[in-house]
């Protein structure tokens, strides 16, 4: 009997201590995952401004794609997500004070290199059946079912998409020029 009391109180103590710890870290994660938080660094601010005018925030479905949705591993890869987020946060602070000047173009290339098709395909899942865009149907097949040696990234063709310096708000449904992938960046 005594054994159970000791055991039970230990569990209770554990919950009592860990609950605020967990909720605090969760709260921190949520607070530091907003585009507003990202924009609090002046290096990142232009990227957030451009993102706000892109079709990834302005569309009739009302879908808003946050920084984290593209730039970090999917939250279901919980460990990866936490690790990558903490690592990048810490690195950015260190670089801000110690590193050389922020080179946006280099950062852009690094982001493209880091992107994973899974990140895009969290939302863009129905890529193979687009009766109005038969060319895209063909191209997407060569990505989803890539031949060995011909693996491609979504961002190889779809780049300068969100953080382009148009200076205009682009609303997906009223876009005058139909959207088109740009073709392979490396060509």
């Amino acid at each position, binding site marked *: 009997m005594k054994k159970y009391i000791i055991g039970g109180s230990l569990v209770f103590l554990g919950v009592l201590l860990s609950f605020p710890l967990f909720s605090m870290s969760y709260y921190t994660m949520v607070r530091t995952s907003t585009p507003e938080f990202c924009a609090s660094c002046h290096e990142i601010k232009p990227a957030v401004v451009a993102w706000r005018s892109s079709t990834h925030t302005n569309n009739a479905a009302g879908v808003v794609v946050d920084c984290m949705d593209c730039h970090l591993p999917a939250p279901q890869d919980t460990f990866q997500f936490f690790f990558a987020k903490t690592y990048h946060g810490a690195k950015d602070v260190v670089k801000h004070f110690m590193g050389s000047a922020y080179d946006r173009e280099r950062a852009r290339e690094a982001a493209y290199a880091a992107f994973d098709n899974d990140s895009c395909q969290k939302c863009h899942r129905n890529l193979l059946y687009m*009766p*109005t865009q*038969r*060319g*895209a149907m*063909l*191209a997407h097949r*060569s*990505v989803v079912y890539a*031949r060995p040696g*011909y693996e*491609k990234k979504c961002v*190889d*063709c779809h780049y300068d998409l969100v953080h382009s310096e148009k200076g205009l708000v682009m609303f997906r449904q009223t876009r005058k*020029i*139909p959207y*088109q*992938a*740009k*073709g*392979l960046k*490396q*060509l």
Partner: protein
Amino acid sequence: MRRTLLFLTTGLLAIGLSVPAALAQQPNYAKVKEFRIERSVPPEAQACIECHRETTPGIFGDWAMSRHANANITCLDCHLVQPGDQDVSQGHEQYYSRSDLPWGEAKYKMPIAAIVTPKDCSRCHPDEATQYSKSKHANTIEIIWKLDPWLNKGMNSDSERKVGCLACHGTEIKIDDKGKIDPATWPNVGVGRLNLDGSKGSCTSCHTRHRFSVAEARMPEACDSCHLGPDHPQIEIFEESKHGTIYNAFKDEYNFKAAAGTWTPGVDYRAPTCAACHMSGTGKVPSSHDVTSRLSWETQAPLTIRPQDFKPFPSGTNWQDERQQMKNVCSACHGESWINDFYEGFDTAVEQYNEVYFKPAKAKLDDLYEKGLLDKTKYFDERLEVEFYELWHHEGRRARMGTMMMAPDYAWWHGFYECKLRFVNFMEEANHLIETGQKAYIAKDFPNATGDTTRPVKIFGDKK
């Protein structure tokens, strides 16, 4: 009574037969290709089609017969650009500032570009474009600028280059002060064209506009607009070979329209065309748009070397692997001893060309330069330079290529025979100069040596 009836029936029959015949034979009956837009096509693309079926019926009709039209791929899918792009067609934009707008309405105005590049094609055909970008076709401008004395010494004029060399190799597309494509660089469908978007080449070299046919590129005629003549008569060599003989005799039975990846030797064609050996998938060999990937010798180079050792553009391949690939292609129709013994003959011919003809002639040429009997300032302005050039660039290539593709007349009479004569004459003159110490005559009236000698900045950067 009976007679009247007979007359009547014959008369009626005659009229009945002749009227439809006359209708069918109506002269100048306009045959307009119909294209009913019954599928989802953006209204702007419909506008393109409606205008261009009238303004450019040839282009429209050709496109309407293509697989692109079949798959709902319209003008816009290839020609659309973003506003502010360098190559936005000014003429097309200007149309919309007219007051009458006889064709498209202003609401259909789209920025379009005349030139469609491999990068544009890669939107839907990324793997093909990637393969192509690695080929010598795509990189031919870099190669010729690293090798060619016509360009580097400015020995021909810009016009001669545009209508000659660069028509096949490709121009460097430029935009002039008025925002239009510089006519000195356009029209051009060269295989290595330097496009404004940075991509190299032109898919329409082989898949001509606006049909973009797979079948066409499988035919040797797709290649013969460039691969012919004294310096690289591949089409003539092919025609002389048994492959060409069979092609000419049986091409009506060839199924050129087989779906991609299904074109099968022995089933769809009886003997190969250029594409069949150099590009198409055969057995376990996958198809590739890198047309130069299955080569094991550079038979066009002055000294025949392996593709990986070709300094201007190392292939990055291993020649043994590539030869094995080509042998696998051969083996669709040929037995092992046929293939191996053929390659042994080819290797021997290459070896002999290298050792017996090229190297001694090159050594003699170097000797002449060293002794100051030939002048290095320019090229082609001294007879021995021309002789040496033609030894490797003309008959030397014919000998090697004729051997490779089994055309006896090109291997011998147009090839090694001519090499022999050239070699003897070259050596006689060279030895004469060396013995007498007399300097070679330098042409003082070399015509039209006015071409630009700056290398394309896009490839070589700013440095000289």
